[in-house]
């Protein structure tokens, strides 16, 4: 244990995903020794992200304004929506340059043991985007693990009866893995080879 302020910092850093007690300690002492300007830039970036970045009102992606960059881009197709779990999955799919439609970010996957059901995800928002007939295909790009697959099953059952083409990324993605860790080539291939889900 360290003196008050240092220990507080270590505790806060230790709450971050992927940061264990040892790393938290290392980062804390790095910051203690760092140039004050460097620390100020970090503090500003943290404040900025909490004050300015919010979630796109249409798709749930991270955004600076009401709508995110993808939703605002007039060159993208409105006919296709790609459904993902998290904003970082949008980044992963954008890297492949395979997809030129819009996104819908659910904010997670259905995981009953963690207390997450369909009502806890942005599913109502997705359904309202499909009402006017503009969207003809929905690509389900949830993670290739149990929770992601079950979420895709749930969504397909809602969407297929609406007459929309529903497809799921092709196998070949590492099962049990995170979409964000798939390399661009694999993810691009999974997109091209997506298979249609029928009722």
């Amino acid at each position, binding site marked *: 244990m360290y003196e008050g302020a240092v220990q507080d910092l270590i505790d806060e850093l230790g709450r971050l995903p992927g940061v264990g007690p040892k790393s938290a300690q290392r980062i804390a002492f790095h910051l203690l020794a760092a140039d004050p300007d460097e620390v100020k830039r970090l503090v500003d970036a943290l404040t900025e992200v909490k004050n300015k970045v919010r979630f796109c009102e249409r798709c749930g992606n991270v955004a600076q304004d009401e709508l995110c960059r993808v939703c605002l881009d007039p060159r993208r197709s409105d006919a296709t929506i790609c459904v993902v779990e998290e904003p970082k999955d949008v980044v992963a799919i954008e890297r492949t340059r395979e997809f030129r439609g819009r996104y819908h970010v659910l904010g997670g996957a259905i995981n009953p043991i963690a207390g997450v059901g369909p009502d806890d995800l942005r599913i109502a928002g997705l359904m309202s985007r499909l009402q006017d007939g503009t969207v003809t295909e929905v690509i389900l790009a949830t993670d290739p*693990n149990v929770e992601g697959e079950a979420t895709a099953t749930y969504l397909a059952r809602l969407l297929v009866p609406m007459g929309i083409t529903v497809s799921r990324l092709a196998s070949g993605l590492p099962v*049990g*893995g995170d979409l964000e860790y798939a390399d661009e080539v694999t993810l691009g291939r999974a997109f091209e080879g997506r298979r249609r889900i029928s009722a």
Partner: protein
Amino acid sequence: MRTYRDEGVVLRTHKLGEADRIVTLLTREHGVVRAVAKGVRRTSSKFGARLEPFMHVDLQLHVGRNLDIVTQVEMIGPYARAIVADYAMYTSGTVMLETAERLVDEREASLQQFRLLAGGVRSLAAGEHAPSLVLDSYLLRALAIAGWAPSFSECARCGAPGPHHSFAVALGGSVCLRCRPPGAASPAPETVTLLAALLAGDWEVADASQERHRREASGLVAAYSQFHLERRLRSLPHVERV
């Protein structure tokens, strides 16, 4: 380093650091085991796929300082594939996994609980019976193994021979008129017959039951389970009953 081998059903996984997962399993010989599976979120090997919830696997583990480390995995039953493709199966199945973790302690072997869960998940994935029946049968039998066997014939309090028309969760099942506490449920006789069949594994009777009796039975099983498991089962409200 010391290693050991066991078989288990994966109950739950969660992310650890950048690419690892902590996998919680109900094993045959070591009770509930929490172990680290390294690199499974990043690799394209089959390792990660085998360590998903509902999978029945044979595994080798290294004894670690805090958590053991998974070093080898062989598939015994790839049940997750069928279960995730059916939403009712998935939601029923997750309650089975959550309950198993509650009823078995870490490192406390319970061969009966392991067999019940492995058999239940296998039956669920095979689509042998309605998912909600598999779940309710599992819950009744798992609680019975844990020492809370409900009674569906003689009075749970005084032993008077049944069948009785009242059901009191806190007293342990069916109760006679003299023992009936205020607020006890009065299920249909067919519902009590169904509950007895689910506890006994009499599938001929259970499969032939009617929807309304299944619903009533599910409500009583849920109340009975929640009474005996101290904390609320988080997955139970999400079960889709079709």
